[in-house]
C-alpha cells in the first residue's frame, strides 16, 4: 500500500471480512474487530495507520475511537511503521532461564540495532515479547505466523542468512 493513498482491501479480502462477520449473531459484528485488524495489519505493511483503523471502523459500522481503543490495548498491533521482517523474541521467565537474553544480544550485534528498533534499511524490526506459550522449547521466537524453537546463535545466523537472501516479509494475511 502506498502510504499516501486511502487503504482499501481487495475484493477477495472483503469477501473474507464478510465471511468472518457471519460468525457472530446479527448486530454483534463488532466481534470481528480483532481478526480484521490482524488482516489489515498484514495487508497494509505490518502496522495500523489511523487511516487503516478508520477504514476498518467503516467496514464494521463502528466509530473510529472504538477501533483505536482496541488497537492500542493489544500488543500484537503495531501503531508505528515496522521493518519488512519483524522478529519477536520471547524474553519471559522460562525463555530467560534458557538464554533468551543471549539470543537477543546476538540479534542486536548481527543487525546493529537495539531491541525495539528497526534497521535503517527497513528490512528488520527486533522486538522482545512476552511469553509465547512454548517454554518447553525455549528460547523461542515468532516471525510472521511461524514459531522458531530451541534457538541457538547458530540458528539465528542461519535464519538471518536465509532471510537476507529471500527477503520474505513477515506481514502475511493469517487466513
Amino acid at each position, binding site marked *: 500500500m502506498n502510504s499516501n493513498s486511502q487503504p482499501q482491501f481487495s475484493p477477495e479480502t472483503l469477501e473474507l471480512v464478510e465471511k468472518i462477520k457471519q*460468525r457472530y*449473531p446479527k448486530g*454483534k459484528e*463488532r*466481534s*470481528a*474487530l*480483532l*481478526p480484521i*485488524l*490482524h488482516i489489515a495489519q498484514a495487508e497494509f505493511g505490518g502496522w495500523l495507520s489511523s487511516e487503516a483503523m478508520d477504514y476498518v471502523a467503516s467496514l*464494521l459500522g*463502528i466509530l473510529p475511537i*472504538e477501533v483505536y*481503543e*482496541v488497537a492500542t*490495548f*493489544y*500488543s*500484537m*498491533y503495531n501503531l508505528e511503521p515496522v521493518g519488512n521482517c519483524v522478529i519477536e523474541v520471547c*524474553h*519471559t*521467565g*522460562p525463555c*530467560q*532461564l*534458557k538464554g533468551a537474553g543471549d539470543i537477543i544480544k546476538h540479534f542486536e550485534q548481527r543487525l546493529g540495532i537495539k531491541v525495539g528498533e528497526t534497521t535503517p534499511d527497513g528490512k528488520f524490526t527486533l522486538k522482545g*515479547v*512476552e*511469553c*509465547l*506459550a*512454548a*517454554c*518447553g*522449547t*525455549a528460547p523461542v521466537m*515468532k516471525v510472521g*505466523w*511461524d*514459531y522458531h524453537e530451541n534457538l541457538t546463535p547458530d540458528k539465528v545466523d542461519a535464519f538471518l542468512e536465509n532471510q537476507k537472501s529471500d527477503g520474505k516479509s513477515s506481514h502475511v494475511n*493469517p487466513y
Partner: protein
Amino acid sequence: MVKILTEHINNPNLHKIDEYQRLGGYKSVEKALKTLTPDEVVEEVKKSGLRGRGGAGFPTGMKWSFIDKKSSNPRYLVCNADEGEPGTFKDRYLMQHNPHALIEGMITSSYALGANTAYIYVRGELYYVIRILERAIDEAYAKGLLGKNILGTGYNLDLYCQPGGGAYICGEETALIESLEGKRGNPRLKPPFPAVSGLYSCPTVVNNVETLAAIPWIVNNGGDEYAKLGVGRSTGTKLISASGHINRPGVYEIEMGLSVEEFIYSDSYCGGIANGKELKAAIPGGSSVPILPKELMLRTATGDARLMTYESLSEGGFETGTMLGSGGFIVMDETTCIVRNTLNFARFYRHESCGQCSPCREGTSWLEKILRRFEHGGATLKDVDLLVSISKNIEGKTICPLGDAAAWPVASAVRHFRHEFEEHVRNNGCTFHQ
C-alpha cells in the same frame, strides 16, 4: 497409567478425523446426543470431580450447573485457549496434535449446556494452531458432527475460532468475553457471573482447553470411573508443562498424585536437572503461583512427600506451600538468580496489567522499579520490606486475579530467598551473571 488426553498423541495422523474416529473418537457425541439428556451429561461431569484445568481448579460440573436456564437468551460455550501464563504450553500442544479431542469435547459439552453456538478463543500469536483447528472443524462439519441436525438428533451447533490480539489478561474469563465482543480486555465486575450474563449478556460458560478435552472420556466411561483416578478431590489426569533447567522439557500427562520428586527426577518425566546441577527452586503452576525452594518443593513442612495434587501442593498455605495452578512447572538450578527471575516476572505483570484497578496498575510498576534497583544497584535493606508491603497492597484489592498473580511471585521470593535480596543490596546489584 491411563492416558486420557495424550494416548495417541504421537500418531502423526491424529489431527485427521478418519484416524481420530478409527481410534474411537467422537463416540461421546453419539452417546450423549442419542442416549443421555443434557442434565445426565452434567451429572456425569459432576461425579467425575473434574476441576478447571486453566488454573483456578473450580469444579467443572458445578460451574455448568450455574447456567441460567430461566433466561430466554441463547447460551454460549466458549473455550479459553488464550494460553499465556508463563511456563504453560500444554493447550497449544494438545490443540496442535489432538484438535479433534477439543472439538469432540466442545460438541458434547455444548449439548449438555444447551448451547447452539460455541467459540474457541485462541491467543492471536497461535494462528498456525487456529489453522489446524479450522481444518479439523471443517472435517467435523463434513461428517455431520457439527452444523444442523447433528447425527440426525435435531441438535444444532456451530463452532468458530476467534483470535486474540496479544494480551495475557484475556485468559481471565470476563476479559476474554469482552475481547470476543471486539473490545479491550478489561475484566468485568462479578457478579453477574458469565453463567448468567456473559457473551452478549447471554448465559455463557468459559472452560479451558484441557478441561473440555477431558469430557469425552468422562461421558464414554462415566464420571465414577474418572473419579477413581487420582487422589481425593484431585481426580483424573493433568497435563504438566515442564520447562527450565531439566533434561527433558515437554508436556507430560500425569495421574494426579504422582510425587514431585518422581516428576522431577524420573526419566519418564523431567529426567532430572540438566548439566548435572542441583535443583534450587521450582514454580509448579505457572509464573503466578508461589516459588518454593528445593526442600519445600519435594516435601511439605511436616515432612510428607509433596504430591502433584491441588491439595498437597497448597499444603502449608502460602507460608510453606504453593498451588497446582495451570501445571506450568518451571525448574531452576543452583546457578539461578532468584532476584533476576522475580524481576522478569514483575516486568511481565506490569506489561500485562490492563490498568483498570489502581493497586495493580501502580503496584506492578513499583514492583518492577524496585526489583530493578536490586538487580542493577541502588536498593536498600528497607526495599526488601517495601516489596512485601506493595505485594500486600495489591493482593485481593483488584477486580480480577491478575493483581494476586503479580503479587504472589514477589512475596514468595522474598519469603523463601530473603538472603538473596539482602546479598544484592550488599553487593549493590547482581553478582550471579558476571
